[in-house]
């Protein structure tokens, strides 16, 4: 694993500039990647309980000669599309759909690719009424029992529990200009200062860039983006993501299921061990 990858001269962007890139409406979204990885992708819908959540796309396609289950948060570009996709913010039905499709993949032995790109789970009354907390909790617990390899990539925003609910995997990687955080900078500012306009200060403390997460040992790899970031060249960004995901998947395909699940357990059980081992850890702001 490539850890300790932080080099101060690698990026000249400020933290807030990285966040703006991660959220840029021109940035490739999950379907832009999935359709390049698996041109024969068939989207599957619904949680088989009550609804289909358009903020999460899921389906099957051929990837490196193998049927693969793809899951991903999906944002929209036009206003109409954004509303329809709910800005990539999942409701409880989305997590139930994800787990339904994960069991579907497990039945056939398909590996799972999960692409993360969400500001967070939907913070609305309807989500609360239908049990968003329990839906995320159940999903996180259930991912540890899915007996097929899972590789995840943060492609834009990895926002809070809404992202983690899709982020329990055997390997988690991040695109260079993506972020992954305990809360959005706005929410963190609102919690810490009770003032969400102090988002830049909050962002600088949260350590949410891909290099921060690599240094903390929370992700396995940072995938470089094309010059001008992923939005400058969708094909090149997709090719880089494809190569990295498949490189991480390959050794998992050969693992006995018991080992796979035990390693997945240990990956998260000891995810903070790097910082425990280094009490002086912490890039200085």
């Amino acid at each position, binding site marked *: 694993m490539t850890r300790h990858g932080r080099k101060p001269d690698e990026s000249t962007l400020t933290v807030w500039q990285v966040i703006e890139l991660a959220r840029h409406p021109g940035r490739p979204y999950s379907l832009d990647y999935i359709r390049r990885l698996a041109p024969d992708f068939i989207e599957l819908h619904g949680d088989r309980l009550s609804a289909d959540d358009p903020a999460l796309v899921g389906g099957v396609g051929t990837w490196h000669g193998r049927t693969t289950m793809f899951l991903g948060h999906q944002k929209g570009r036009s206003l109409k599309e954004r509303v329809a996709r709910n800005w990539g913010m999942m409701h409880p039905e989305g997590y139930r759909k994800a787990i339904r499709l994960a069991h579907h993949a497990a039945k056939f032995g398909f590996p799972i690719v999960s692409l993360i790109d969400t500001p967070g*789970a939907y*913070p*609305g*009354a309807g*989500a*609360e*009424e*239908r*049990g*968003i*907390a*329990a839906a*995320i*909790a*159940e999903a*996180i*617990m259930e991912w*540890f*029992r899915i007996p097929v390899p899972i590789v995840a990539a943060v492609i834009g925003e990895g926002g*809070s*529990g809404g992202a*983690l*609910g899709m*982020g*329990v995997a055997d390997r988690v990687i991040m695109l260079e200009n993506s972020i*992954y*955080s*305990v*809360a959005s900078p706005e*929410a*963190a500012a*609102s*919690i*810490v*200062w009770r003032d*969400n306009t102090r988002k830049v*200060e*909050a962002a600088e*403390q*949260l*350590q*949410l860039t891909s290099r*921060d*997460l690599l240094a*903390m040992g*929370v992700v396995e790899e940072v995938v470089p983006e094309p010059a001008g970031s992923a939005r400058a060249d969708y094909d090149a960004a997709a090719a880089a993501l494809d190569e990295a995901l498949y490189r991480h998947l390959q050794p998992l395909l050969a693992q006995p299921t018991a080992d796979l699940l035990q390693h997945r*357990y240990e990956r*998260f*059980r000891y*995810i*903070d061990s790097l*910082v*425990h081992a280094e*009490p002086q*850890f*912490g*890039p*200085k*702001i």
Partner: protein
Amino acid sequence: MALAKAQPELRIAGTKLPAIPLPTNCPGCGVGLDADALRKHNYVCECGHHFRLGADAWIALIADRSSWKERWGDIRSHDLLNWKVPKPYQAVVDQLIEEGLNEAVRTGTCTLAGRPIWLAVFDFRFVGGTLSIVAGERLARGMEQAAASGIPYVLITASGGARMQEGVLALMQMAKVNAAVGRMHSAGVPFFSVLTDPTFGGTAASLALLADINIAEPNAAIGFTGPRVIKQATYADLPAGFQSAEFQLAHGQVDLVLPRTELRHLLAHLLELYP
């Protein structure tokens, strides 16, 4: 109180509850408070208002007298991210420890009505009962041991969610503890969760609602996103009682809403039903 009448021997309380700071009047009914009477009534006013308890009071309430054995009480939170504003995180933690608190989660073993249990208790006074690396570590270690030994696990929650000052590592604790909850379920170990006011965010969306039996205290606020943020994000008018324990009962998220005065009897009875 049917259970209390049916099983008078279970009236043997745990330890006498510690004194807690109280307002002069009850926020529920406005009546002047008698601290001694309230303390004997598990800090539940006659009007039904439940005062928040710290971890020490909860341990005294649940554990049989002198049975509490705290575990891993010496692991401490540190400022890993160099968090400086508005307050340096390390100074916040040091101050709380100096005041005699020991993290947002304390865990250990004890007996309840003579039966051994694992007990984990959140403490809202410690950075809002937030899930931190140390909190997650204490929870996961206890659950792993419960899974290995078959001893039932009792959880009391009071938490604002994941701890901002530990960044994404605090978020990862949700996966860490849920993995351990899964181990308890696979091992057939009974897991009882008591949700108290307030239980939100990363704690509600991880172990709090994953128990075999979810019990909530009357009128406790329980949810994922707090009402202030929901109003900011959606401009919605939230109805009275939104995210209350009773709301969660009506929406199928908890098994029962039970006054604190009956909790010990219920847990003792559950330990008999799920041996």
